[in-house]
């Protein structure tokens, strides 16, 4: 654990070992019996070293170089700096950090895997998409592949020899996946001939992996329209011989790559399957179960994108602190009339300090939320206790859209604020903060846009969820936190979260009535505002939880020191400084950011109908096309 430009390692340890207490999992779940705190520390430290030494700079350079597509050969070249960095990730064994040892994984708790991945993705989101997408694909093969698939594909994907993708989107089937046109025709030998085009396929083609494995959503000839008729096929770039060696080219070509505002090192490909009638796929799972199978991977994928949001916010914030501590500009506001006053570093300006504390509060809150979600999914996987499993599933279900949409929207704002701290220099490509800002936007779009997440939250996860079990599981946990905070945390912070919970109950009750009354258009309109409010409440809760743990620890170290003595203590004792800072960011969030939540709630209660009333004719002044 060291100082670095990516992640506040101390805060990460606070979440893992003081809030979630991951080190205690070994006592409860036998598969973690060998893993103690020291082992976790070694894994996290190694991830930090590789991320700092190998990945970060390669990622910054890779953004400038970008990806290239050769129109003649149809081959894609990824940034030249990426190879050695991705090699280091695979060689150390991070691909399988939390995977089942049966497939060559290390079998760590998910939250520790997330801790490692936080370093890697903070170092370079676009670079880590290559192993990230491959990991999702590998788990699909693990869950739904035949024994032969598993025997051949899994070791090669675990080692990084082969990579993988997820092929959903088509030119006319984005958010509406059911509209897809890719076709599968069954052959006499049981395989399927695939034809169609997929777009926006991350890592679709590249010069890192020797073979690519594409899970492709397609409709078997004659199957019904819409999502019910969709199946999923395993389509390699090169055919795979029975001994696992590479066979002939499988007619999967990259027709082009996108030129994007961010994640420039990640090749976003248009893939043509079977242009020459020679692309063969094998069915994964059963026919017409494609969406169900793909959805099993969605939780991991959405958790992953929520993590990307956290990582970009974190790396932007960490850069902003270092810059603000070193950049001399202007005199202190208390010395403005003193002509002899010397310039101070900008971190001493109240407005810059406010920006940093705003970023800190968001990054730390999002970190709690991401790790909690990861840990919850973990418990759901490993527990043998049915009640615990149901509770974990209910909590995970509701946290997924809150975490994905909330974290990624805030990531765009936090990285923007990082550019603001740098001022004009932040707008220049000489510093990497503008890259973080550019990279962040896609996280709000892909893996289900944040609008889709909000609708998922409002309808599937709350209003259509039986007895609102998901919602009640989450709010009951929040109420427990409030009860534990009483007497430990200053009353006003507990009262704010309690009041927030009561207000949300009112909104949900009202929405249930609107649902029963068939006011669907209104509810669709309010989905995103509800998601935004719930993300704010979730962060306020996370901060209250942090306050409950950090307050007594800070007291034990700092005691009643005040003024210059306290400052001296904070200067010389990193633990005192950490806990003190952690408390201040929590207080700032609940005391200064969270009041905005009540305005958001009021807007929901007020039922403004302007959006419902507006139509395509009321948006005037723009060209027809």
């Amino acid at each position: 654990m060291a100082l670095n430009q990516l992640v506040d390692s101390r805060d990460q340890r606070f979440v893992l070992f003081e809030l979630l207490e991951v080190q205690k999992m070994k006592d409860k779940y036998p598969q973690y019996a060998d893993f103690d705190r020291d082992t976790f520390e070694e894994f996290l430290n190694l991830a930090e070293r590789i991320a700092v030494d190998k990945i970060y700079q390669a990622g910054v350079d890779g953004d400038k170089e970008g990806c290239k597509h050769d129109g003649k050969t149809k081959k894609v070249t990824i940034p030249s700096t990426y190879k050695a960095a991705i090699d280091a990730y695979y060689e150390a064994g991070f691909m399988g950090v939390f995977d089942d040892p049966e497939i060559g994984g290390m079998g760590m708790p998910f939250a520790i895997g997330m801790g490692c991945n936080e370093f890697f993705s903070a170092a370079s989101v676009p670079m880590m998409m290559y192993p990230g997408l491959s990991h999702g694909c590998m788990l699909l093969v693990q869950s739904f592949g035949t024994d032969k698939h598993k025997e051949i594909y899994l070791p090669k994907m675990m080692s990084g020899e082969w990579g993988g993708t997820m092929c959903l989107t088509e030119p006319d089937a984005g958010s509406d996946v059911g509209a897809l046109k890719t076709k599968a025709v069954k052959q006499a030998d049981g395989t399927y001939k695939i034809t169609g085009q997929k777009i926006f396929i991350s890592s679709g083609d590249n010069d890192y992996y020797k073979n690519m494995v594409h899970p492709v959503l397609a409709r078997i000839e004659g199957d019904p329209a819409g999502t019910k008729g969709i199946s999923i096929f395993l389509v390699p770039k090169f055919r795979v011989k029975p001994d696992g060696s590479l066979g002939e080219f499988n007619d999967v070509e990259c027709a082009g790559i996108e030129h994007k505002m961010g994640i420039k090192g990640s090749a976003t490909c248009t893939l043509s399957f079977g242009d020459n009638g020679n692309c063969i796929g094998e069915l994964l799972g059963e026919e017409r179960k494609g969406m169900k199978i793909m959805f099993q991977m969605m939780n991991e994928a959405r958790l992953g994108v929520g993590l990307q949001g956290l990582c970009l916010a974190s790396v932007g914030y960490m850069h902003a602190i270092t810059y603000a501590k070193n950049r001399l500009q202007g005199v202190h506001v208390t010395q403005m009339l003193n002509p002899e006053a010397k310039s101070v570093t900008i971190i001493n300006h109240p407005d810059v300090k406010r920006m940093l504390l705003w970023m800190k509060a968001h990054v730390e809150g999002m970190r709690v939320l991401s790790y909690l979600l990861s840990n919850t999914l973990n418990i759901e996987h490993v527990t043998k206790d049915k009640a615990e499993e149901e509770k974990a599933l209910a909590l995970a279900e509701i946290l997924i859209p809150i975490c994905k949409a909330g974290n990624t929207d805030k990531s765009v704002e936090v990285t923007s604020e990082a550019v603001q701290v740098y001022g004009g220099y932040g707008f220049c490509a000489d510093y990497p903060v503008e890259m973080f800002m550019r990279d962040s936007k896609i996280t709000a779009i892909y893996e289900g846009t944040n609008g889709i997440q909000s609708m998922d939250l409002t309808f599937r996860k709350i209003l259509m969820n039986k007895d609102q079990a998901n919602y009640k599981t989450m709010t009951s946990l929040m109420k427990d936190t409030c009860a534990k905070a009483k007497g430990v945390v200053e009353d006003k912070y507990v009262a704010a979260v309690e009041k927030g919970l009561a207000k949300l109950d009112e909104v949900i009750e009202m929405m249930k009535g609107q649902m029963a009354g068939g006011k669907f258009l209104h509810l669709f309109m309010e989905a995103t505002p509800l998601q935004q409010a719930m993300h704010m409440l979730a962060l306020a809760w996370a901060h209250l939880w942090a306050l409950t743990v950090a307050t007594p620890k800070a007291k034990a170290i700092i005691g009643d020191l005040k003024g210059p003595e306290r400052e001296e203590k904070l200067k010389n004792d990193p633990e005192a400084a950490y806990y003190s800072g952690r408390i201040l960011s929590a207080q700032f969030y609940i005391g200064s950011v969270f009041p905005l939540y009540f305005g958001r709630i009021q807007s929901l209660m007020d039922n403004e109908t302007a959006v419902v009333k507006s139509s395509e004719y009321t948006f005037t002044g723009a060209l027809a096309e």
Partner: protein
Amino acid sequence: MKIVVCLKQVPDMESNFKIIDGKSIDESQVAFKINDFDNYAVEAALQLKEKNGGEVIIVSAGPDRAAKDIRQAFAMGADWGIQINDPAVQAGDNFVVAQCLQKAIQGIGGVDLVLTGVQAEDDQAAVTGVMLAELLGMPHCTNVVKLDISGANMTVNRELEGGLNEVLEMSAPAVLSIQSGINEPRYPTLPGIMKAKKKQLDAKKASDLGASTDSKTEFVKMFFPVSDKKAEIIKGDPATAAKALIDKLKNEAKVI
């Protein structure tokens, strides 16, 4: 080949150092790590093992906390180790450490090669390796930047000042102190970290080894070096300033 690497755990130089009573460092604020130069020695040993077979043994004198970094070398691929964990050794000087290392290495028996870092990052004494060679009665070479081994014959490049290399022929067994840059030390791997937990690490005290803990030097005090900022800007036109500078160099600094 049986190769011993002598490894020292040192404070991370980016730590916040506080001196207590002029005698020691407040360790509560300090992070520890493998001496960087020793890391190159570990890598050199692992490469030799991969080429010639054999085993890599870590020998380290350090308190409980040093076990973490010995196991880090295990996670990189070293086979087993000896930790000389004795407060009396820790309080001793480089000679005490060298003597303990000597006894431990002799106890292992049949060692073909001993590698050390060229120096430790903390005290920068660069003497332990040389003392160890003398005590073991083995030939040695310092500042090794290249190493070729064929059987017992070694060709060793020794770094000299001014970017020169001295090429030496030596025969094993020998002690070599390894300079940074000779290789790129590998990272541990996650499976390596798990395996490292089960590798043999023998704990020894000076008395177990039959080594003396009497220092040859006397510790006086520990202090932060005082930095003087006495730069003087000579004013005036170039001709006058040049004259003033020559005068100062001649009469004040007495360097010309």
